[in-house]
């Protein structure tokens, strides 16, 4: 799987290249500025890009802007954005085009190599991965609709919005597959959402709903 990596701190960049290589990824380019990232994305058209939000030369949200620009050129280009801090605002901008294949994680998540690599794979496969803190804030935000959910349904919704499959949710919450299915059906009913089997479509529907509220 071909990866383009953008990170301006040498130590982190090197560490992540090592991590990804050891898990069988092919890092075709590891860049450290916004303009070179955009050029690399358009040149290599990788299977997935792992991008730091803040990059030189302006040290603002150059990485995010480059990723969004590349996705405008190449719709659906899978991008996993990493940041020292998560902002609802950036999550919304990433999700805005509704095509999926985006991820937005705290940099801390690289601590757990397996989970991080799993997230990269899911984004590459067209899935949506949001950091638990983003989801927690969205779900915690009191609204007319999420107020009617039971605590257990809330837990299921949080995991579902993070992009987990039914099986993964069941494993984490110690529930059977059918119980998870029942909860999900109940959530979709309460939120008035169309039922869908496709994990990604399901996540996008939930996120769109939560953001709209």
């Amino acid at each position, binding site marked *: 799987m071909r990866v383009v990596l953008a990170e301006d701190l040498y130590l982190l960049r090197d560490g992540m290249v090592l991590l990804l290589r050891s898990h069988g990824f092919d890092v075709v380019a590891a860049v450290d500025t916004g303009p070179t990232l955009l050029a690399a994305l358009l040149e290599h058209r990788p299977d997935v890009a792992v991008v730091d*939000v803040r990059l030189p030369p*302006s040290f603002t949200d150059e990485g995010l802007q480059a990723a969004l620009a590349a996705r405008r050129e190449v719709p659906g280009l899978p991008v996993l954005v990493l940041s020292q*801090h998560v*902002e609802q*605002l950036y999550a*919304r901008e990433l999700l805005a085009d509704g095509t999926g294949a985006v991820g937005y994680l705290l940099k*801390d998540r690289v601590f*757990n190599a397996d989970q991080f690599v799993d997230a990269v794979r899911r984004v590459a496969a067209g899935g949506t991965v949001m950091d638990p803190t983003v989801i927690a*804030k969205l779900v915690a*935000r009191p609204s007319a609709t999420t107020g009617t959910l039971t605590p257990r349904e809330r837990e299921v919704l949080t995991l579902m919005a993070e992009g987990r499959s039914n099986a993964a949710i069941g494993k984490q919450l110690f529930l059977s597959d059918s119980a998870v299915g029942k909860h999900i059906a109940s959530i979709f009913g309460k939120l008035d959402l169309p039922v869908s089997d496709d994990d990604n479509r399901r996540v996008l529907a939930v996120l769109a709903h939560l953001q709209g509220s």
Partner: protein
Amino acid sequence: MTWFRGVYRGVVLLGVAVAVLAQFLGSLVLLLPGVLLGWVFLIPPPVRHGRRLTNRWRAMFAAWTGREVPAPYQPPPAPPQPDGDGLYRHDTTLYKSPRFPRFFRRLDWLMKDPATKRDLVWQLWFPVVVLAVVPVGLVVAPWTVRLVATWSAWMLAPMDPARAARKASRGARTQRALLAWARAALLVCFAALEVVLFAISMACFALGFGLGLVFVIPLGISHYRWLANLRRHFAGWGGVRVDRPYTPELLPQRRPDGMLQVRNNLYKTEAMASFNARWQWTWHDIASWRDLAWLCVDPLVTVGLLGLPVAAVAYGAFGLALPWVWTQVFGADWSAWYGAADGNRTAGLVLGVALVAAGLAVTGRLVTVHARWTALLLRPTREAALRLRVEQLTRSRADAVDAQAAEVRRIERDLHDGAQARLIAVGLTLGAIERLMDTDPAAARKLVAQTRETAEAALRELRDLVRGIHPPVLSERGLADAIRALALDLDDVTANITVTGRLDGRPPAPVESAAYFAVSELIANATRHGGARAVTVGIDHRAGLLRVTVTDDGAGGADPSRGTGLRGIERRLGTFDGTLSLSSPPGGPTVATLELPCVLSSPKTSTS
């Protein structure tokens, strides 16, 4: 209308007129103790019962004229709701029981309704009109009855909104003109006082220099400062800001050898030292002499500017218009001087009304001109203004340095107790893992997981700390987006926060940061203390001024002099010559406007 029905209704009208007269006099008698003695609890019942009776007349005239005559009253107020502490609020007071707030709400509802006044006016005039028109009309022309009915229906129906608005704005204009006149009259009275104070000053100089009673000299050049300060304050009436120009008070300093020092003179006694300090302080302040010049000239200027309109209104009202009423209505004697112009009473009335109107029309503008005159001598000279500026800068710099030092201490403490301690723990556990790796791999694995958790916690703490120092989104996106992100982030808040406006560049980073933290505190105030449901933040940069307004629909009544939060914001903005102005009437809405002078720069490369 047939002649018979006209006559019949005319007779009914006569009866109604008697009833309305009784109603009017009755409510007057019942309301008198409430209005005159302040027994306000007696006011609502007669008004409410009077409304019921008036509704009867309303229905009658509606039937006679075929018009719709809806009741014009405002809907009754909602019962008071307890706040979080179970207390009930009215205006600026909290009550334990809902009884008083409910009563006051009902009182306001009844007395502030323009329909109440209209009802009373109608009750006053209706008997007069009926008695004047109907007996004649009954014989000559029955349509006069219809005229009375139509007029009554019009009086008792709600006022046309456009007309009501026009009336209200006319009322406000009249109120403003009367206020301006009262202020002008007060200024003229002060002018008389100034003459007295100037005479006292001159007497002090005469005694001091003539008879050698030197101790009265400092008094002679400074005893009127309170009046000058009052006038500086009054200059605000004309929209002119006049700062106090005086140098800071000179106080004797005690030396190590026990002597008191004032400038280069040494004194043994407290009394002599403070006398000389006062002399030095007042005599060498140019503002004292400007004040004295003002005290000399101002009575002439004030009377010259404002005397004529003040006198015109006073004489027009009390000298010409009132005597006309007095003599014509109550049959009092009149003289050529009071209530007549050139021996003619009607001309006197016309002239009186004209004088009042002309006087009221010009006073507003003259008060503004007068305020400019005040500024001319009483504002600080260029040198004094610079000195005041230096004093203010010294103060705000001290504030800024204090605030910064406190902030650095907080960061140091947070790092010391948080991330630093956790990293030590990580180091210790790594040592343990090293030892256990070969002997007990299972325990080592458990410790690795624990270490990772500690490292994550350290990162989380650092992130929160960074956000408190300077939110990353602020440096990445600028003020507008940072506030948007803040709005999205406040998940414990049910208020709806909208951000309008954008900036074409970036203010300097410190200004941006100050504005951001001020806005975030204002939003927190609005939602936490004001119970706001909707907050609007408007951002705008014009004429070298960054202006951010935070408007909320909360309970209002915010007062910078009571909370330390608003004071803190003011102080922090003060470092950048920024200001915070607040409008927060009880009941809301609250509008906080902060203004910071700054220049926007286009987004540029930085290494921050």
